[in-house]
């Protein structure tokens, strides 16, 4: 995001591929930034493709309104850390990783889920992801 970069959240990413062709000419002097899947090099599991894109969009608009083009720096500072952990977690399977865990431990199935993994363990995978991605009920509900 912001100025052209070869890496994002520690990973190599292609730079501004959407600006090839027609747009390239008119945007030669433009300040550019990205949001959503264009900004986050991840497979968008955990419903975090569209959701993080929406949160990015709202953040860009807020910073552009308050500080103009200069606000893009603050957008970057706000959304990069907020999404970097999601990118990393999704590369390990995200909340869906709970399925891999159970299948690995009980390839032939199970009678009771508690015999395969403790409730605490399951909460740690799915619940921690909720907290990180910011959508636990207590994080979302308005005061």
């Amino acid at each position, binding site marked *: 995001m912001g100025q052209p970069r070869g890496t994002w959240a520690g990973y190599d990413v292609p730079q501004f591929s*959407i*600006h090839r062709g027609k*747009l390239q000419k*008119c*945007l030669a002097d*433009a300040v550019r930034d990205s*949001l*959503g*899947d*264009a900004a986050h090099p991840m497979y968008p599991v955990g*419903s*975090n*493709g*569209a*959701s*993080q*894109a*929406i*949160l*990015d*969009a*709202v953040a*860009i*608009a*807020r910073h*552009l*309104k*308050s*500080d*103009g*083009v200069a606000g893009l720096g603050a957008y970057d500072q706000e959304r990069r850390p907020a999404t970097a952990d999601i990118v990393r977690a999704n590369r390990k399977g995200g*909340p*869906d990783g*709970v*399925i891999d865990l*159970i*299948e690995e431990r*009980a390839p*032939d*199935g*199970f009678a009771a889920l508690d015999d395969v993994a403790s409730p605490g363990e399951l909460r740690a995978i*799915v619940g921690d992801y909720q907290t990180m*991605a*910011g*959508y636990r*009920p207590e*994080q*979302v509900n*308005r005061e």
Partner: protein
Amino acid sequence: MPEEFNIAIAGGGIGGLTLALTLHRAGFTPVIYERADVIAELGVGINILPHAIRHLVDLGMLESLDSIGIRTRELIYETTTG
């Protein structure tokens, strides 16, 4: 902040359209560049999380979302054996 610059949005997907609507509310007049001639569904389901839906509701989209979508009640993780 007065509008002293033009805003071009490359791509009219969920992010681009949300950005355009939000910027419009903030007094900007962004232009979206989208290569598709029409906005159409791709046959995939998209779940949008509560903290993101909240912003779409702020944009006045709750009623229209309810008319075309299904409110997520629960999310169930199942292995191949159940």
